[in-house]
């Protein structure tokens, strides 16, 4: 039969995707090991495992209380930002979309900075307030974007406006606060993995894994959304329901991750496009953008901690990646004759 190999391509692309996932997963593992072993004091991987499993007390504080929470926070916030960003890019059919558009991270950050500077709240309470503020902000923006029917353009416009407003508000708060509190507030400005406490991690991990699984369950619907709402409806997808659920899940992901690490710049924005670049556009790229997100945060933190003349928060390093990417997209779109 002449069409024996009609699906060869489909199958080989599928295989390539799975292979890419394995490779990305290995990179995450390697970076995780690097972050666990290298630092002020270097330990061998074996030593780290011994300490983690309680067979040795060598470097217990450094490994168990500092590096482990830091690396886990990097992985799970990376997954959260990466997946949520990819979901938004898919929903809005725009490679430049990111959940910041819906104001989650700017809402969380503004609330956190306010709580730190003016209410002197402690860190865990700040996180709670940040989650709530992020969710509320996004609900408000989504409602506005949904006035008559859903409009991606309106969402983007309202989102950019709100973000600008919050940024101005944050700057004003920092200018009028006492100098003493500003460094604490600044950590919220550009995502930071310093001083992550072990207590906050289980919740983050549970939330990220549950949202990730829920989004994976919607992957068949997600791959049809780029065809447009009409096609998705004809195929029997409850477009509005699916879109709302996906947005809610992404907002939760971003809100929780932001509450613990602050808004780590560019991860949400970069993970999806990088994952698509590596794995192609034929699947929903949920797991691939999750892994790319984790890689970016782990690598960014490693660079910021160990490879430069002084220590930088991870958000500063990843933020540096965002600019060149924007220029790359602009150049590419210009070449395609469309903008």
């Amino acid at each position, binding site marked *: 039969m002449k*069409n024996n190999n009609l*699906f060869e*391509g489909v199958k080989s692309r599928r295989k390539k995707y799975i292979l890419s996932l394995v490779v990305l997963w290995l990179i995450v593992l390697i970076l995780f090991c690097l972050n666990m072993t290298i630092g002020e004091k270097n330990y061998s991987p074996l030593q780290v495992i011994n300490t983690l499993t309680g067979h040795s007390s060598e470097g217990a504080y450094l490994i168990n209380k500092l590096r482990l929470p830091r690396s886990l926070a990097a992985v799970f916030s990376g997954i959260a930002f990466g997946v949520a960003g990819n979901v938004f890019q898919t929903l809005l059919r725009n490679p430049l979309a990111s959940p910041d558009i819906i104001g989650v991270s700017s809402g969380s950050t503004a609330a956190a900075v306010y709580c730190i500077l003016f209410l002197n709240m402690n860190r865990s309470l700040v996180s709670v307030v940040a989650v709530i503020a992020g969710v509320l902000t996004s609900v408000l923006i989504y409602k506005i974007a949904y006035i008559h029917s859903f409009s991606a353009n309106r969402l983007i416009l309202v989102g950019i406006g709100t973000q600008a407003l919050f940024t101005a508000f944050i700057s004003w708060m920092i200018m009028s606060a006492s100098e003493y509190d500003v460094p604490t507030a600044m950590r919220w400005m550009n995502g930071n993995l310093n001083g992550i406490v072990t207590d906050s991690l289980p919740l983050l991990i549970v939330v990220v894994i549950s949202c990730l699984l829920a989004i994976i369950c919607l992957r068949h619907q997600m791959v049809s959304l780029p065809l447009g709402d009409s096609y998705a409806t*004809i*195929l*029997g*997808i*409850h477009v509005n329901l699916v879109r709302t659920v996906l947005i809610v899940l992404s907002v939760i992901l971003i809100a929780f991750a932001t509450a613990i690490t602050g808004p780590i710049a560019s991860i949400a924005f970069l993970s999806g496009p990088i994952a698509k670049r590596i794995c192609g*556009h034929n699947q929903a790229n949920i797991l691939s953008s999750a892994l790319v997100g984790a890689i970016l945060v782990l690598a960014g933190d490693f660079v910021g901690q160990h490879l430069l003349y002084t220590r930088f928060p991870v958000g500063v390093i990843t933020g540096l990646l965002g600019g060149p990417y924007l220029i790359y997209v602009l150049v590419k779109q210009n070449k395609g004759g469309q903008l």
Partner: protein
Amino acid sequence: MNSNTLIAKDIQAGYGQKNILQSVNIHIPENKISVILGSNGSGKSTMLKTFCRLMTPTAGLITLDGTPLSQIKSKDIAKSIGLLPQTSIAPEGIKVAELVSRGRYPHRQFMTGLNKDDYKAIEEAMEAMKITELADRSIDELSGGQRQRVFIALALAQETDILFLDEPTTYLDIAYQIEILDLLKELNKKRGTTIVMVLHDINLSTKYADYLFAMKDGTLIKQGTPSEIITEDTIRKIYGIDSVIIRDPISDSPFVIPVSAHDNYLS
């Protein structure tokens, strides 16, 4: 093949405050090919969208085998009613075979991959549209006509009993127009698929259609077999032009020759 009696009763639909469909009554002829004729903006696409639940009628009722559409699960409707919209977005970077496979969504189980039936349906759809050679190409690298055939294949892969097509031949040269209409005729004969399409070429319409609907300003002004309704009078009513009607020497269907102002022809 029994879920294909689609009836609209007194439906009205429109955009915002503007009402477009004015109390339309249609019983889609089962297992037949119907063509909707009408000038630009007469509401043909609006009617197809309403039948395919892309628009909710503001009044009236659409039933599928006697059950109102609003009471049927969306995925079940998707197994019975398919649509090729007038315009389609070609998502960036996606390959043709994968795009056609999107048509299998209503048949797929919750967590599984594509099964044997899915592969068979995709393969048949792609063969019917002669796009098997394009399987591994990106959709955004194709010509307008190739894209159109990919999107028709997507609709075919959905394997619905009723298939609506909004101007399926618009981007195609005459050879592909004939080829696609032949393929749709074959689908109709082999599987009994009910086909309803909007065409702008009256003469191709009379050649392929068992039944014609004529629309004007959101109402159905005529319906019947081509020989019944294609008259000089109907053409004038639909398009506002004079014409002469002869017989197609091959198929004996009515053949419309439009009269130009330069023809010096007095009817």
